[in-house]
């Protein structure tokens, strides 16, 4: 049965809605046979457009179902249909359960408390730092970190969870497991599959099409007990995840940012709408009903020096450029340049292009044996 289901799922433009509509008509194997045969008005109604139905018809005629199935087996991708034993129990009684779930890695890790850490791909250094720390601290507290393996906040949250090397991370991806997307996260992708699990409802070979990501977001919301939005613009994928979470009665926390930062606009709207603020991992643990772990921050950075201290004070917690620091401190440009570089090396500030951002106290409480250890400059 699963082989036919995989074949149906790999038809072009078949998402959760179309797959569900088709399965309401008949069993997968019967559907496949009727796709190959003379036009079926019921399936054509699901396709909507005639061109799409004809495309399905052609694909069904050409596709070797057995080979597609073997490919999944060889690739180490597990397949579980709704209602079969391998299917994640948490998704069974969801509002919109995926008809079939693909997984790479150990699907048994989807148990215990889970928190989704989501946010924008266009994040600031502040956002990615917070996501990293939340991922790490929650994993250390035994909470599974769920995210989408996208750039920005998602990647930082997963990297944090891997750095802790404690509770296994769960990544929900939108496209086929054989297509790493985005390419920059290849190493992260592999590390999550090794230590935790990659989940998705797209068969091998499914390209990263736009419509797959909102569908992916609903699974993230469904899997998590609590959703934390670290940084989000006024609209975007993270806000969509929040809508899905609200529909499922999941608690949503938002990380506050500078009120003028457009990368935190979405979070601030959520806070204004009544979401609880998330300041650190303990706030999330509280929302989960777990007790927070006592982790005192240790600041091991070297002393910034008098000039450095002046620059840090002038900088505050919002990005500024060298010109602004100069006018706020009254130092010469040469002094500002030297001080900023020294602060950067010491880990007090981050420089990204023209902008200089102050960096918070790094809380290196994670195990030194993390899989990304040594390569992550937290």
């Amino acid at each position, binding site marked *: 049965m699963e082989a036919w289901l995989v074949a149906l799922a790999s038809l072009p433009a078949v998402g959760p809605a179309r797959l569900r509509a088709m399965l309401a008509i008949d069993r997968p194997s019967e559907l496949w046979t009727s796709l190959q045969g003379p036009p079926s008005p019921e399936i054509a109604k699901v396709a909507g457009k005639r061109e799409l139905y004809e495309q399905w018809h052609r694909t069904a005629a050409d596709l070797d179902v057995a080979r597609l199935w073997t490919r999944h087996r060889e690739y180490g991708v597990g397949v579980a249909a709704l209602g079969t034993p391998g299917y994640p129990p948490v998704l069974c009684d969801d509002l919109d359960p995926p008809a079939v779930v693909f997984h790479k890695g150990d699907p048994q890790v989807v148990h215990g408390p889970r928190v989704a850490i989501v946010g924008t791909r266009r994040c600031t250094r502040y956002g990615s730092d917070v996501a990293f720390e939340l991922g790490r601290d929650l994993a250390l507290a035994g909470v599974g970190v769920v995210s989408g393996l996208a750039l920005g906040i998602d990647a930082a949250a997963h990297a944090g969870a891997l750095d802790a090397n404690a509770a296994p991370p769960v990544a929900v991806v939108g496209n086929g497991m054989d297509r790493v997307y985005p390419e920059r996260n290849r190493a992260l992708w592999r590390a999550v599959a090794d230590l935790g699990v990659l989940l998705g409802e797209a068969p091998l070979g499914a390209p990263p099409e736009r419509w797959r990501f909102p569908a992916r977001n609903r699974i993230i919301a469904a899997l998590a007990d609590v959703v934390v939005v670290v940084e989000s613009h006024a609209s975007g994928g993270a806000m969509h995840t929040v809508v899905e979470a609200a529909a499922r009665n999941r608690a949503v926390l938002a990380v506050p940012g500078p009120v003028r930062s457009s990368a935190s606009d979405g979070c601030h709207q959520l806070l204004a709408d009544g979401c609880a603020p998330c300041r650190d991992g303990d706030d999330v643990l509280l929302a989960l009903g777990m007790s927070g772990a006592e982790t005192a921050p240790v600041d091991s950075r070297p002393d910034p020096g008098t000039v450095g201290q002046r620059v840090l004070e002038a900088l505050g917690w919002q990005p500024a450029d060298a010109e602004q620091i100069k006018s706020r401190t009254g130092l010469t440009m040469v002094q500002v*340049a030297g001080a900023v570089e020294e602060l950067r090396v010491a880990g007090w500030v981050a420089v990204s292009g023209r902008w200089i951002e102050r960096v918070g106290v790094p809380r290196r409480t994670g195990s030194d044996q993390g899989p990304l250890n040594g390569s992550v400059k937290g």
Partner: protein
Amino acid sequence: MLATIPASVLAGITGHPVSVEVHVSCGLPTFTVVGLPDAACREARDRVRAALISSGVTWPAGRITVNLAPSGIRKEGPGLDLAIAMGVLVADDQLPAEALADMAFLAELGLDGRLRAVPGVLPQVRCMETDAIVVAPESAAEAALANGPMVRAPSTLQELVSVLRGEDVWPDPPVPGPANPLEEAADLADVRGQHMARLGLEVAAAGGHHLLMIGPPGAGKTMLARRLPGLLPPLDEATAIEATMVHSGVGLDLPSSGLIRRAPWQAPHHSASMIALVGGGSQALRPGAISCAHGGVLFLDEMGEFAPQALEALRQPLEEGVIRVNRATAAASFPARFLLVGAMNPCPCGELGQPGMCRCTPLARLRYARRLSGPLLDRFDLRIHVGRPEVSDLFDAPPGESSTEVRERVDRARAVARDRGVVSNSQLPDDALDHLAPLDPEAKSLFSHAIAEGRLTARGFQRVRRVALTLADLAGKGPPLTGGIVAQALFMRTEPVTVAHDPWSLANVRP
């Protein structure tokens, strides 16, 4: 009757002596020019004929043959007009040959008999070994730079003929007019705010370091770069002559004194081809924009938009200060020692705001960054970010330091460099740095941190060291280089494009 008149033609920026032989004999009236003349040169027939008739001399009724010897090389341009006219008059016995002894001619003729200036007078005068040379009045100052033949500058053919017939005396050489005020370089005092960019310009001028300015549209990158020539010291004698030869050869305007003393400025548009930048051409090899910028500033705005091939061609002249152009039929080398100033946006959208505001994907930014190759980028010792000035700076800020004040510091730093035996610190050889710019322990640790981070290559290390030395010279500090100075130099060499903070990206994760 036969006459031989010395003249010259221009190839690239070098002059070649040419003998203009004119033969007038009986026969049907014809006028032919032989000896590989190009179109402009062949048209000399009509100009010479009209100019002579307008000047009140008789046009010989006979067969006129003009040969341009050596006949093997191509003759280009109208610079032989005057020599041909003189040849016709001597061959027709209308002028005594003795009056023209050891006298060369170099000017274009107008139909009314007026003498017009031609490009490349200086290199052409330098190639001739005559006692006197006759040029158009506008070329007189330039011809005099050769310090060779006596320069005569009559304004018309009629005037010249009467002098040569002994009916008149040579006119006084024209007095150079007052300097064109537009030639004055723009002043730094006009710039409000922009302290980082000011510092960048100062260091670039003092140390001869190539400068890349990264900033959103409208930040004033072009306006700032335009002020760099005003900070550079005047050209030395040799460079001034070389620069004048190039400018004269390609027909650019020369200052009224004839000699280019102020650092030149070239800003080719980004549609420029590789040939237009480095020089070349199919017939005569012409110098490109980099040679026109010799001794001065080559400004490439929107660097990312230049053809990659054109930019890569800059690498060799950047190292050697000279460009050798080779073609199947000819080869030439042109001087090209220039200060390269580039300007580009931080990303395709221009990154209007703060972190998190840019709308470009990291991939798009990375692609934009890759338009400049690593080796080319490595040659920019100074890479600074320029922001849009604050509105309050535009209206209320007091004017900044003027170019004159900054130039004093630049001159002092250059004097220190001269004591080390180089024009500027950017030319110090690597091995000299060890004893000229020793590092204190703090500086060493900053460098090793930057190298470990992958920010600096071995070459980059030496380049930052030179910038640090220039900063120390500007501040009047002696060796060793302190951590503070090295930190300043490192800050002024930022990464051009900000890739989102992503320490766990593929590049950083160990396999």
